C-alpha cells in the first residue's frame, strides 16, 4: 500500500512533462507567474502552456486543450476559474494525466455551491485515476527539480535553497510566508506543499510520503483542522518513527459542544483533543511560527538526543544561569560533572573559571578554552547527551575563528550540539557562520534550550517506538 501511494504522489514532485492549464502572458495573473516559474526557473522537464486564447505564449507554442499536448502529461497545473475546472479535469482524464494541482479557489471554502463543485471535481479525478492536490492552494515547490507552482512572484517571495526541511501548509498565504522567511534565514527546503482543500491528497498522505523521502529530514506542518483523525493517528505514528514532525495547529479557542451529558465530554475541547493526537503520534506541537522554524532548523542540522543530560558551556555567567532556568522549565537535566573531569579542566583554566555545569569560561576567554571544554567535557565525556555552546562573542580575546573549533567538535560528535550567540549585528554574523558549519544557533538561551528539548523529546519518542511494546490492551489481568 505504501509504495502505491508513494508512486502516485511522485508526479507532483518529479514530473517530466507538465501542462500549465490557464497559462497567460498578462503580468500579475496566476497563470502567468506559474508559467514563468517553470519556463525561466530551471525546471528539469518539459513545459506545455494550455489556453485556447493563445497560439504562442512567451515564445512557446500554446495548446487549446491538454488533449492536444503531443506527449503524455505527468502533471497538470490548473489555474482557471472554478466553473471551468470540471471541464478541464474531464480533459485531463481523457489524456490520462497522472496528477493535477488545482490552484483555483471558489470551492468548499466558499459555501455549499462550491462544495458541490468540489465533489464533482473529486469524482472526475477518482474515475480518471488522477491524484489531486488542492483546490484552493498554491501547490508545490521542489527546489531539487524546480517544480514551482507558487504564484507569488520571486521578487516578493524569495525561494529558499535546497535543504532538508519539508513544509506543509493548509493555508497558501502561510506557506508563502514560511518560504520567504526560510529564504531570509537561509534555511534549506526539501519540498513544500500548500495542500488547500484536500479534495484528494490530504495532509496525512503527504506526511506518509515525506517520511520516506530521502531528501527530507524533518517535516514542519501548519494545520487548521484534520478531517480523518483516526487515520492521522495511525499513519503519523509510523511516520514519526522515521523522522520528526513539528506542527502548528491554529484555532485554539474552545468549541461549544451541545448537550454533553458526561463530564468527560464537557472537558474534551477541540484544542485538548488535538494536543492529545499530537502527543499520541509523537508530533511536536509548536506554539508559533518562530518555534516551528527554530525546531525545524535544529532537526535539519543535528541528530536527536538519546538522553536528557545537557552540558552548558558559556563565557558569561548570566547567560549560563538563564540556560539552566530554561532547562528546568523544559524538564531537562543539567548534571554535575565528574570530579575527576573537573580536576582535569582546572589544570587548563584560570582559577576563576567554573568547572561545574555550566562551565563558565568567563569574559576573558580565548578560543582555546572553548576547544578544551568541548573536547574534554563533551566529546570525550560520557556523562552528557547534548551540548549548548553559548558564545558571547563580545569577549575581547574571543575571535570569530571559534566557529571552526565548534565545527570540528560537531563533526566528530554523534550527539547533538546547539549554539547561542546573543547580541546585535556582530553576534548575528557569527551565528550565521556557526550555522554554515552545521550547528543551529539561536539568539537567546531560552530558544536554544527549547531546540535541545525538542531534540531530546523526539529522541526519546523514537527510541521507545522502535523498541516496541506497542500492542493495545496488552497485559490485562
Amino acid at each position, binding site marked *: 500500500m505504501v509504495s502505491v501511494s508513494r508512486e502516485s504522489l511522485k508526479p507532483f514532485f518529479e514530473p517530466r512533462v507538465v501542462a500549465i492549464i490557464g497559462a497567460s502572458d498578462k503580468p500579475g495573473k496566476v497563470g502567468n507567474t506559474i508559467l514563468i516559474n517553470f519556463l525561466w526557473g530551471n525546471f528539469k522537464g518539459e513545459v506545455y502552456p494550455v489556453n485556447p486564447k493563445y497560439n504562442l505564449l512567451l515564445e512557446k507554442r500554446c495548446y487549446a486543450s491538454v488533449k492536444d499536448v503531443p506527449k503524455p502529461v505527468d502533471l497538470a497545473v490548473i489555474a482557471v476559474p472554478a466553473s471551468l475546472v470540471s471541464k478541464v479535469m474531464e480533459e485531463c482524464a481523457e489524456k490520462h494525466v497522472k496528477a493535477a494541482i488545482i490552484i483555483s479557489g471558489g470551492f468548499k471554502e466558499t459555501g455549499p455551491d462550491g462544495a458541490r463543485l468540489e465533489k464533482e471535481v473529486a469524482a472526475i479525478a477518482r474515475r480518471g485515476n488522477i491524484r489531486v492536490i488542492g483546490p484552493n492552494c498554491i501547490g508545490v515547490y521542489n527546489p531539487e527539480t524546480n517544480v514551482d507552482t507558487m504564484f507569488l512572484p520571486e521578487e516578493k517571495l524569495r525561494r529558499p535553497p535546497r535543504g532538508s526541511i519539508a513544509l506543509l501548509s493548509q493555508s497558501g498565504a502561510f506557506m508563502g510566508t514560511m518560504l520567504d522567511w526560510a529564504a531570509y534565514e537561509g534555511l534549506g527546503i526539501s519540498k513544500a506543499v500548500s495542500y488547500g482543500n484536500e479534495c484528494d491528497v490530504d495532509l496525512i498522505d503527504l506526511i506518509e510520503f515525506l517520511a520516506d523521502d530521502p531528501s527530507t529530514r524533518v517535516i514542519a506542518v501548519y494545520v487548521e483542522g484534520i478531517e480523518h483523525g483516526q487515520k492521522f*493517528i495511525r499513519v503519523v505514528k509510523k511516520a514519526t518513527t522515521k523522522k520528526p514532525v513539528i506542527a502548528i495547529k491554529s484555532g485554539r479557542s474552545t468549541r461549544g459542544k451541545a448537550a454533553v451529558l*458526561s463530564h*468527560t465530554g464537557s472537558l474534551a475541547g477541540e484544542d485538548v*483533543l488535538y494536543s492529545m493526537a499530537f502527543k499520541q503520534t509523537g508530533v511536536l506541537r509548536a506554539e508559533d511560527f518562530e518555534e516551528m522554524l527554530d525546531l525545524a532548523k535544529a532537526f535539519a542540522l543535528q541528530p536527536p538526543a538519546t538522553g536528557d543530560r545537557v552540558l552548558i558551556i558559556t563565557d558569561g555567567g548570566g547567560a549560563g544561569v538563564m540556560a539552566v532556568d530554561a532547562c528546568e522549565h523544559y524538564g531537562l537535566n543539567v548534571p554535575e560533572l565528574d570530579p575527576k573531569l573537573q580536576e582535569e579542566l582546572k589544570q587548563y583554566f584560570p582559577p576563576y573559571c567554573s568547572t561545574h555545569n555550566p562551565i563558565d569560561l568567563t569574559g576573558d576567554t580565548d578560543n582555546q578554552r572553548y576547544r578544551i571544554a568541548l573536547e574534554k567535557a563533551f566529546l570525550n565525556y560520557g556523562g552528557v547527551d547534548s551540548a549548548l555552546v553559548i558564545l558571547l562573542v563580545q569577549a575581547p580575546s574571543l575571535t570569530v575563528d571559534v566557529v571552526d573549533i565548534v565545527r570540528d567538535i560537531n563533526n566528530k560528535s554523534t550527539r547533538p550540539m546547539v549554539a547561542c550567540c546573543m547580541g546585535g549585528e556582530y553576534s548575528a554574523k557569527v551565528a550565521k557562520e556557526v550555522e554554515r558549519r552545521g550547528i543551529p544557533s539561536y539568539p537567546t538561551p531560552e530558544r536554544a534550550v527549547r531546540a535541545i528539548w525538542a531534540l531530546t523529546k523526539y529522541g526519546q519518542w523514537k527510541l521507545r517506538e522502535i523498541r516496541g511494546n506497542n500492542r493495545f*490492551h496488552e497485559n490485562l489481568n
Partner: protein
Amino acid sequence: MDLISQIFDNATREGRTVLLEPEAKTICMEYGIPVTKFKLATSEEDAVKYAGEIGFPVVLKIVSPDVIHKFDVGGVILNLKNRKQVREAYSKIINNVKHSKPDARIVGVLVQEMAPSSTEVIVGMTKDPQFGPALMFGLGGIFVEVLKDVSFRVAPITERDAREMITEIKGYPLLKGYRGMPPADVDTIVQILLKTSKLVTEHPEVDQLDLNPIMVYEKGAKVVDARMILSR
C-alpha cells in the same frame, strides 16, 4: 445473547440512551473493572436485606431513567450504619424524588457498599467526530472541575499510553503519596484505563462514559459511580 448486549437491547427498547447505574456497573464488571458491591432493591425489606448482605455502612441511591443528577433531587444518602437507618433512608429517597421530580419513573433504590474515602480519580471516554473514542484520566473533584487537569488518549491505548496519561497530569505527585498520604495503586489505575479502552473499542455503541469517582487505595481501587451513554 451476552449480558452486555442484553443491557443495550433493553435500553434501546425502552428508548433510553443513558444507562441506569446498575447497568453501567454490570458492564464494568464484565470487563473486570472493580466497582463497589451493589444490589437493586425495590422495597424497604429488600434494601434492609441487601444492606445486611453487603455489610454496613452502605449508601442508597435512586435508580431512575429520568434522574441524571441524583444528588440534586435528594436521591443519594450516604453512610447508613444499621438496618433502621437503611429503612428510613429508603422511604426518604423515594419521597424526595417524588417531591422534586413527580414524573420520574422509579426503577428502585441501589444499595451500595460505602467505599472508604481516599484519593479520587476519574476515568472517562467521549466520542469525537474526528478522532473517535477519546479516553480521559484526571484526579477527581476540583482537579477536574476547576483546574481541568486531565489527560486524553485515543482508544485503543497501550499500557505505555495508560502510564503516560497518569504521569502527565499536574496532580500526579498527589498519587505518589503526599504529606503522609500513602501512595495510590497506580497499577490498578493502569488496568482500569486498559479495560475501559477495551470496553469502548469492543462496544462502539457506547458514546460517552464517566467512571467518577473512582476511589484509589494503596492496594486496589473501586468505581463508586458509573455513567454510560449510548449513541443514538
